[in-house]
């Protein structure tokens, strides 16, 4: 047994986190910043933070992740990191020449109280920021929130780049949240299929799913451009997908730039995608084309064809709040029963929302917003499940408890495809079903006695 010391009996822990279902804010800020075209994310802290975040993102996306660091030493930690940051700005523009430097803080620079806004002012006053170049920043102390809130903070800083001209641009802002590059691409496809002009930010498609062609582009072709970001204040509205990842930025544009916003769930599964398309239609004043209705119908068809294999199967889920809310709703819509649900990102709203979605299920639901995968494993030991959905770390639980397992979320370190095949939208729903069915039916085949092993399923 890989997790041989995990007891079935659950004791409350108030201080010790074991096998976390979250990581720290700065990595989220780094991922979001990679969705700006020509942007170099910068970690204001000691070298290890940047090295760890780059490694984690690289292992998940299997793509280069360029980011710089202020390389704090003990001296900088005592006297403040301003000198390091100013030196970094000089070197970054001289050597890498990005359009934007997107700085995020770390627990180190936050604890000593470095003020990035003031440092930027100083850099500006000293002429360190070349004309036409941008520096944006956000505060992401690692001891607050999680990778999800760090992502949200950087996305909000991107929204703050808005420079309204007073003339509407006829576009809709779409904030996709921390989803895969392929998901961002799929959202863009659906939006353009609906005939809506949009600005999607951040946009890591074309950045973290790039081609191999013999050329390395430190700043790949993808990403939301600075021009687009400046124009978000002129948009007709904002659709934020996912409260945790995208709500804050959308509301900022709403209250400060008078760009009206709606915050929806991430469009995973049938109903959440329905709401997304419907909102798109109403805000942009377009009618939904037949192609989209066809895609929806195909997803409904597959649900009906395979319902017998989903019905009342118990599921354990771990991941990030926006994803889990949509996934839980999707599973319930299949008549599956998500019974153990854990996220590491704090927030009471999460638990309430999950309880609301699962209130008619024939089983009691365990849900914890500030949970960890050790607790999830204990819940599973007490009430076993038929399916486990989560990031790669779940494979230790899946193997010990012999549970069919679908990898979905961050990080996925041992499989490929998440960068290329979306799970949002109706087509993404088909892929999720294909994956879920695959593991459930493989298990059925594996365990079926010879006399009832069947060709047709």
């Amino acid at each position, binding site marked *: 047994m890989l997790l041989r010391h995990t007891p079935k009996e659950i*004791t409350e822990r108030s201080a010790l986190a074991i096998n976390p279902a979250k990581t720290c804010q700065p990595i989220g800020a780094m991922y979001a910043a990679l969705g700006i075209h020509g942007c170099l994310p910068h970690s204001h802290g000691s070298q290890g933070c940047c090295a760890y*975040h780059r490694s984690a993102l690289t292992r998940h996306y299997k793509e280069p992740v360029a980011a710089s660091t202020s*390389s704090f030493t003990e001296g900088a930690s005592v006297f403040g990191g301003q000198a390091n940051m100013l030196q970094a700005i000089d070197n*970054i523009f001289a050597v890498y020449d990005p359009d934007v430097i997107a700085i995020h803080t770390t627990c180190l620079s936050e604890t000593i109280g470095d003020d990035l806004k003031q440092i930027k002012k100083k850099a500006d006053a000293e002429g360190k920021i070349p004309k036409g170049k941008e520096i944006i920043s956000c505060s992401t102390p690692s001891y607050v929130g999680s990778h999800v809130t760090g992502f949200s903070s950087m996305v909000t800083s991107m929204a703050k780049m808005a420079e309204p001209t007073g003339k509407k641009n006829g576009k809709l802002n779409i904030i996709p949240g921390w989803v895969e590059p392929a998901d961002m691409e799929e959202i863009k496809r659906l939006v353009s299929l609906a005939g809506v002009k949009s600005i999607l930010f951040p946009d890591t498609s074309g950045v973290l799913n790039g081609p*191999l062609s013999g050329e390395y582009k430190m700043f790949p072709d993808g990403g939301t451009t600075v021009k687009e970001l400046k124009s978000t204040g002129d948009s007709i509205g904002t659709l934020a997908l996912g409260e945790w990842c995208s709500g804050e930025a959308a509301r900022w544009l709403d209250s400060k730039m008078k760009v009206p916003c709606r915050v929806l769930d991430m469009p995973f599964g049938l109903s959440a995608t329905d709401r997304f398309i419907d909102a798109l239609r109403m805000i942009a004043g377009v009618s939904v084309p037949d192609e989209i209705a066809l895609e929806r119908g195909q997803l409904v068809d597959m649900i009906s064809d395979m319902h017998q294999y989903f019905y009342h199967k118990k599921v354990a889920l771990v991941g990030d709040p926006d994803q889990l809310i949509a996934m839980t709703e999707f599973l319930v819509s299949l008549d599956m029963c998500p019974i153990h649900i854990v996220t590491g990102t704090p927030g009471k709203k999460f638990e309430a929302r999950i309880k609301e979605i699962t209130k008619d299920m024939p089983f009691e639901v365990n849900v914890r917003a500030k949970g960890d995968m050790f607790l999830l494993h204990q819940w599973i030991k007490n009430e076993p499940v038929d399916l486990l959905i989560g990031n790669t770390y779940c494979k230790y639980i899946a193997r010990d408890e012999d549970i069919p397992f679908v990898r979905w979320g961050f990080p996925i*370190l041992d499989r490929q495809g998440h960068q290329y095949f979306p799970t949002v939208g109706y087509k993404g729903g088909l892929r999720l079903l294909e994956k879920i069915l695959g593991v459930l039916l493989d298990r059925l085949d594996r365990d079926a006695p010879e006399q009832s092993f069947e060709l047709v399923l």
Partner: protein
Amino acid sequence: MATTKKKLVQWDPAHVKAELLAKYPSKVARKRAKQIMINEAQGNETPEISANVRTTPGIITMRGCTYAGCKGVIMGPTRDIVNLVHGPIGCSFYAWLTRRNQTDAGPDGENYMNYCFSTDMQDSDIIFGGEKKLIQAIQEAYDLFHPRSIAIFATCPVGLIGDDIHTVAKRMKEKFGDCNVYAFSCEGYKGVSQSAGHHIANNQVFKHIVGENDAEKPGKYKINLLGEYNIGGDGFEIDRIFKKCGITCISTFSGNSTYDQFASAHKADLNAVMCHRSINYVADMLETKFGIPWIKVNFIGADATAKSLRKIAEYFGDKELIDQVEAVIAEEMPEVLAARTDVRTRTEGKTAMMFVGGSRAHHYKELFNEMGMKTISAGYEFGHRDDYEGRQVIPTLEVDADSRNIEEIHVEADETRYQARKTPAEFEALEKAGYTFKQYDGLVPDMDQGTIIIDDLNQYEAEKLVELMKPDIFCAGVKEKYSIQKLGVPMKQLHSYDSGGPYAGFKGAVNFYQEIDRLVNSRVWSYMQAPWQKNPELSASYVWE
């Protein structure tokens, strides 16, 4: 596999160096110039390189932090210690199973390596102090698992807010009675790289664990293997060879290790040091306190493995062992040589670059040599000058502000347990016969004339080097992997090997030959361009009428 095409790449080292420096602001260029060295003999002197110095802010470095060196590298591979990270969640999360240290706990042995433990500090802990939470977390870990040992690791904010983790550890150890609790002040901002973390880990392991178990260990020819981390099962292969030779490995620092191995390390009669950078401190301290001499070995490369085994056998000087080592080498080598002969038809004359570790860039050069491949540029991510130039430079090393902060512990001979392993006459006889203790000559003497040695290589320089020198393979870590491969050059990770292994010992050498053969001769590198990109002009004869 594609057929080998010999290509001729002309480069002038002085030109390459100038190109690497050309884009830098002058201050950065001056600093980097001292860390980029063209390997030219200067009389009998090894040329001097600047190493173990700060990375310039903003320059995209390969380096990590002190915490990574301490918790991630040295303490991570020990399976029966609960490694509790005191800090915000990220530090523990990123070090959770991400190095490919394998371990064999058997069906019911203690094994916490698959777990990630953290105090998950929140802002209130930063404001009001985190000691209370740490004490509670240690208690909870103890109540849940009853481990024999709990190690506490400090992260950046812990040092800043002044949590006294050592006193907490001491109190908890006294409270439990049956669980050794100790702490590491390995805040990420200390030092200039992972290297400081190695040193901190060495010190604390020596202070708190080594020598705790005086029980005699069975077996003959007892050694410790220092600086081997069982990445991809390297340590398993070395253990297999030791067993076959009749050599007893009391402890490995720290691949596939247990608390008790460390506690019993002083019962060995020889320390064999693999990774000089990460573990030489323990080797020195074991010698001073317990009288165990140390030698440098290398089990990366089949020839190097044979050489290292002979060196161990020569130390013990026992015919039984010497004969057995020869028998094992004779038995293992034919398979290695067959594989080598086969791959050399495809790898001979190809070129490699390695920028990794504090010893690995040196060790793996052996394997490339065995394949007929030339290392044209190499360097360390966190090495010191002695890893480049040899240990003779140690007395001349300047102690700067960053290394002064790393504790040097003073060790004296143990009053009762110090025991010289050989008589002065025996040591003298060995040394007269050319045997060297406590010696490491470093990477530089092994590099060819005119090759380029670069310390703390960064993203920009890596890309430039590949562009100018066109190596057939580039070796570094995961962060460098895909930017190099985008250029159409295969990249092998030599920290954690991407996948695969073991690459140590005899079987490992064969694995490595095959892996490098696969990488440098893969068909994929010929697919960079589509047919229409290779021949963009339209020809009228192909146009559909």
